């Protein structure tokens, strides 16, 4: 019954197959038909690729190159080195030796007191003390410390003044690659410590072109003529690469990705090597790219090459690569593939298998033929068990077990059903193997045994009859030990505690045909259907994922789980990668160079122990590697915020005045994998009520009204914006000052205050007027009382009597004067002010009367010009009262004559008289003077000045320029 057969063993010629990169795209920078030379490039922490070119610094977003202008005038704009320091500051080094920094969107030249080099800048590094170092071609290297620039050159012990590259060791040493070997530099205080390592120390070639960190204080060294080697800085030793099969030529660049070395050479193009001493492959990069200047990997895992100093090349990198090339016709014949425990690949042929493997670091193939098979039969399923035996399931010819080392195989005849059965899939876990056939499902238990001859225990799943079909596409044992069956026509069933449970349309599954089952890290079961996308079963409900959820296609041939827990969905045109946590989907498709995938055969999707997934495409077998650090969604970057079409400093300015109200926002969803697919969703909170979807990268918002706003933008590769990266800008447009509550309040308070002040002023005026009136009345009363003072009349009449007798003519004049005096008193008493002339006339009348009494003993001297008399005003009867007071209070006699002087001095009319105190004081003394003072207080700001120096009594009355009211 058990038949042992010997296999035809055939080792095909070892093939120097050129490994192939996928998703290759070429870019050039053309400015007015002139091709720009590209010297260097870096990936900034933001994810952006910056390029140093003969035309200056460019930023590349995957679609267009944006020139970062120079702030200064430069004669040579060639940028040969770019570096991002720990503060995200971008430094540039130029062919001219100049150093620049990117400050607010432009390159500003750095101008230290020491001057800048005159030779090309080749490299920068920042050491552990934050010192910036840079190397030159011809002036050694420089470092900046404490405002000074210091040089290290051959006079300090550097082996050569040409330094091509710098690297930083774990202990803070700077490793410089020169034309004469490695130079380990450090600074202690101001002392330069330099250790040179060259061919004497085991370096294969002294001319060092590149130093790339290799981890653990080791560095890959790329040389001009010595290929690559490793420098172990801890032991200051070199580890030589023994690979002799490939001549490197000059190494320009080394990049490490997924433990593989990408090597850019001067003459041999791009090489890939599986670590030091590993297999070296020349890699096709499309076109004649014999010269690879630089290599970098973006955040998504794409690998970028700088070729021929003028070309930028994008590749899909390690994420997806073509690992087996098909010859014409192979694609249709391959119905099953297998990734074995050694990461060797088996593929089915009509007669058996081909194994692709490496031997002595060369790629080889081995052919296994199975005699029972012919052109018409096909191998549909492959599986490797714990004994490393290969299980081979066929269509119509049963199941075979192969020992790939000895080449022996046998037909598995244990179960009658399998003898000439048609196997649809073989799956397993540990020592349990599940075979699904057109007739039903069988379960094998294998024991650890190197021989293929040992009979195995098996069990048919008879219970499947209860489901109603034996047509099982896939059997899957989950982490809880449940066994799931994907059926054709009867949905999905699970064997749990010895019982079959069928989930179907009643549970919300809309497709009867289930092809493939997997489980995510959280224990959810995922399965693919014939034409309804995939489903997730969380133990309670079945959730469907379809095109509206971001899937590319609903005809899914397989679902797998990668090692990061992503659900890998294989369909005809590519692979969708679904993050079960976020629901985000990213894509590998034609834009990464994937052509048609075989979805006819369920056996053409394989997975190895590291989680990598193989699919069979028209070009050959491609491998998808999930990269540990890679991001699968675009990063949203708010490029700039413009106010009236000019950039503002969006990091510091967030408040605008009411007339600064026209904004525009520019943004980028950085996604180099497929930049054209990016769509944006944005919303200006405070203005838009809904999110808007656009492909535009600049959105204007003219004439915003005052208020608080937040501009939010997200980018997506598939219009599904849940959990995608968001950039935002919060800002406030302030209300015009006159609409702010505090301004209104201030206005109210100040107008209230003004009104209060006005009222107070008016009140005071009214009071003043009233007071003036009262004072006037008092004064009038006083004057009248004085003038009708019986003494005055009595004295006047006595004088009159004397005159009548002596000189009747004079008596008439005297009476005339007296009546004139009283008339004037009466006519002026209602006025507030009169001219000085009028007052003086009144005074003279009065004095005439008094003079008749006192004769020459009373003298009045007036020294006021006519003009002054007319232009100056005075309250009526003031001078008269002062003269009267003088007469009243002083003795007027021949011995003591009284002289009254009236003159103008400093805008004052002054009444001065000599003092001869009268023994008996007249009545009402002081009343009149006080009244004058009071009246002046109401009429003028200036005060009445009264001076009494024993000899003279002087009263200065401010003259009033205008008639008050």
């Amino acid at each position, binding site marked *: 019954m058990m038949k042992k057969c010997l296999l035809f063993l055939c080792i095909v010629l070892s093939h120097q197959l050129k490994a192939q990169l996928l998703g290759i795209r070429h870019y050039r920078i053309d400015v007015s038909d002139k091709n720009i030379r590209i010297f260097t490039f870096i990936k900034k922490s933001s994810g952006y690729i910056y390029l140093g070119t003969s035309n200056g610094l460019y930023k590349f977003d995957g679609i267009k190159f944006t020139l970062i202008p120079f702030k200064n005038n430069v004669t040579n704009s060639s940028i040969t080195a770019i570096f991002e320091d720990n503060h995200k500051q971008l430094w540039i080094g130029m062919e001219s030796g100049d150093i620049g920094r990117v400050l607010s969107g432009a390159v500003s030249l750095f101008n230290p*007191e*020491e*001057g800048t080099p*005159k030779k090309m800048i080749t490299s920068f590094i920042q050491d552990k003390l934050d010192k910036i170092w840079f190397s030159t071609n011809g*002036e050694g290297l420089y470092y900046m410390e*404490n*405002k*000074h*620039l*210091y*040089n290290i*050159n051959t*006079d300090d012990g550097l082996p050569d003044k040409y330094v091509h590259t710098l690297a930083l060791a774990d202990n803070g040493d700077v490793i410089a690659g020169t034309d004469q070997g490695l130079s380990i530099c450090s600074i202690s205080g*101001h002392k330069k410590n330099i250790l040179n390592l060259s061919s004497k120390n085991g370096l294969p070639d002294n001319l060092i072109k590149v130093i790339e960190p290799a981890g653990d204080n080791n560095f890959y060294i790329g040389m001009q003529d010595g290929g690559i080697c490793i420098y172990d800085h801890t032991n200051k030793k070199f580890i030589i690469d023994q690979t002799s099969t490939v001549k490197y030529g000059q190494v320009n660049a080394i990049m490490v990705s997924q433990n593989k070395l990408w090597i850019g050479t001067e003459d041999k193009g791009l090489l890939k090597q599986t670590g030091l001493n590993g297999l070296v492959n020349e890699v096709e990069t499309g076109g004649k790219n014999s010269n690879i200047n630089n290599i970098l990997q973006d955040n998504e895992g794409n690998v970028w090459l700088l070729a021929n100093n003028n070309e930028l090349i994008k590749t899909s990198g390690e994420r997806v690569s073509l690992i087996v090339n098909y010859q014409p016709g192979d694609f249709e014949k391959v119905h099953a593939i297998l990734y074995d425990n050694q990461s060797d690949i088996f593929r089915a042929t009509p007669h058996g298998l081909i194994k692709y493997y490496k031997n002595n670091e060369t790629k080889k193939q081995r052919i296994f033929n199975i005699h029972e098979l012919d052109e018409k039969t096909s191998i549909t399923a492959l599986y490797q068990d714990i004994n490393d035996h290969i299980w081979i399931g066929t269509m119509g010819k049963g199941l075979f077990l192969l020992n790939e080392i000895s080449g022996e195989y046998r037909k598995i005849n244990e179960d009658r059903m399998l003898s000439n059965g048609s196997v649809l899939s073989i799956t397993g876990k540990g020592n349990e193997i599940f075979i699904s056939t057109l007739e039903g499902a069988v379960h094998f238990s294998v024991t650890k045994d190197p021989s293929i001859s040992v009979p195995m225990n098996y069990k048919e799943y008879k219970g499947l009859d209860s489901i109603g079909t034996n047509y099982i596409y896939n059997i899957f044992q989950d982490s809880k030990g449940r066994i799931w069956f994907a059926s054709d026509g009867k949905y999905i069933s699970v064997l749990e505690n010895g019982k079959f449970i069928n989930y179907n349309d009643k549970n919300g599954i809309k497709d009867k045909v289930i092809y493939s089952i997997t489980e995510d890290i959280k224990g959810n079961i995922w399965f693919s259907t014939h034409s309804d996308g995939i489903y997730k079963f969380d133990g309670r409900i079945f959730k469907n994922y379809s095109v509206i959820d971001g899937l590319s296609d609903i005809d899914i041939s397989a679902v797998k789980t990668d090692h990061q827990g992503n659900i890998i969905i294989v369909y005809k045109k590519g692979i969708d990668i679904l993050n079960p946590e976020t629901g985000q989907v990213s894509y590998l498709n034609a834009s990464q160079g994937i052509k048609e995938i075989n979805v006819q055969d369920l056996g053409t999707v394989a997975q190895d122990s590291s989680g990598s997934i193989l699919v069979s495409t028209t070009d050959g077998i491609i491998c998808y590697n999930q990269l540990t650090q890679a991001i699968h969604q675009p990063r949203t970057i708010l490029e700039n915020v413009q106010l009236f079409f000019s950039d503002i400093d969006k990091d510091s300015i967030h408040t605008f005045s009411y007339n600064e109200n026209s904004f525009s926002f520019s943004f980028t969803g950085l996604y180099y994998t497929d930049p054209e697919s990016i769509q944006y969703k944005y919303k200006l909170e405070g203005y838009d009520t809904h999110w808007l979807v656009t492909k535009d990268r600049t959105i204007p918002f003219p004439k915003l009204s005052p208020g608080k706003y937040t501009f939010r933008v997200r980018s997506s590769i598939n219009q599904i914006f849940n959990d995608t990266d968001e950039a935002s800008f919060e800002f406030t447009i302030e209300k015009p000052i006159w609409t702010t509550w505090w301004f209104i309040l201030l206005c109210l308070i100040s107008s209230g205050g003004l009104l209060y002040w006005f009222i107070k002023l008016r009140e005071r005026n009214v009071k003043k007027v009233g007071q003036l009136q009262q004072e006037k009345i008092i004064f009038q009363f006083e004057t009248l009382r004085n003038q009708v003072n019986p003494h005055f009349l009595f004295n006047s009449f006595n004088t009159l009597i004397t005159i009548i007798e002596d000189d009747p003519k004079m008596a008439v004049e005297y009476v005339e004067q007296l009546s004139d005096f009283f008339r004037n008193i009466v006519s002026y008493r209602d006025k507030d002010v009169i001219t000085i002339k009028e007052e003086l006339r009144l005074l003279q009348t009065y004095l005439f009367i008094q003079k008749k009494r006192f004769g020459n003993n009373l003298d009045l001297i007036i020294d006021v010009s006519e003009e002054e008399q007319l232009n100056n005003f005075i309250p009526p009867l003031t001078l008269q009262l002062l003269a009267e007071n003088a007469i009243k209070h002083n003795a007027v006699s021949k011995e003591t004559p009284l002289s009254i002087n009236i003159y103008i001095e400093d805008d004052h009319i002054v009444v001065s008289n000599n003092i001869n105190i009268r023994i008996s004081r007249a009545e009402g003394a002081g009343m009149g003077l006080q009244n004058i003072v009071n009246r002046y207080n109401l009429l003028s700001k200036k005060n009445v000045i009264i001076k009494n120096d024993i000899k003279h009594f002087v009263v200065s009355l401010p003259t009033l320029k205008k008639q008050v009211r």
Partner: protein
Amino acid sequence: MYKRILITLNLIILLGSSFKEPLTIYNVQKGLVSFRSDAPLELINPISNELRGIVETQKKEFAFSINIKSFSGFNSAIQKEHFNENYLESNKYPTATFIGKIIEDIDFTKNTIVSVRAKGILTIHGVPQERIIKSELTIRNGVISIRSNFTVLLEDHNIPIPKVVHEKLASEIKVEVNGELKPK
């Protein structure tokens, strides 16, 4: 290294007349050094015309020196005394020197104006510091005019600033050197 240069340069000066190729050695004929301490409370700007020095154009080596005591133009006599005795200790360290090599290659036979950088050891107050000093050279009919401005940090040369004069003395001293060199 620099000591050696100094010794050789001194030898050249001493035996200058006996050398066969005197054209490669240039001597300072006229030289002014001024420094400027621009502190919040006081500006000090003394000057000296006693710059001495030579440049050997073939090897691009040079040596300059200045007598510290020759500086004059202080704001007061007491200030000069302090400068010499307290700060620069000119009895102990009578000269300041700058000895080194020019980084750029220059053709000293051509009439030209070029900016060059000199890398050397600047010794002030007895403390040597490596410096790169940028200078403008004007070469006209065999006469080299040097003009350079640079900053000296007092801290770099262990020149202490007493706390009291902190507002009167800048921690960064601006130095200007003007010199005219002719072939020996």
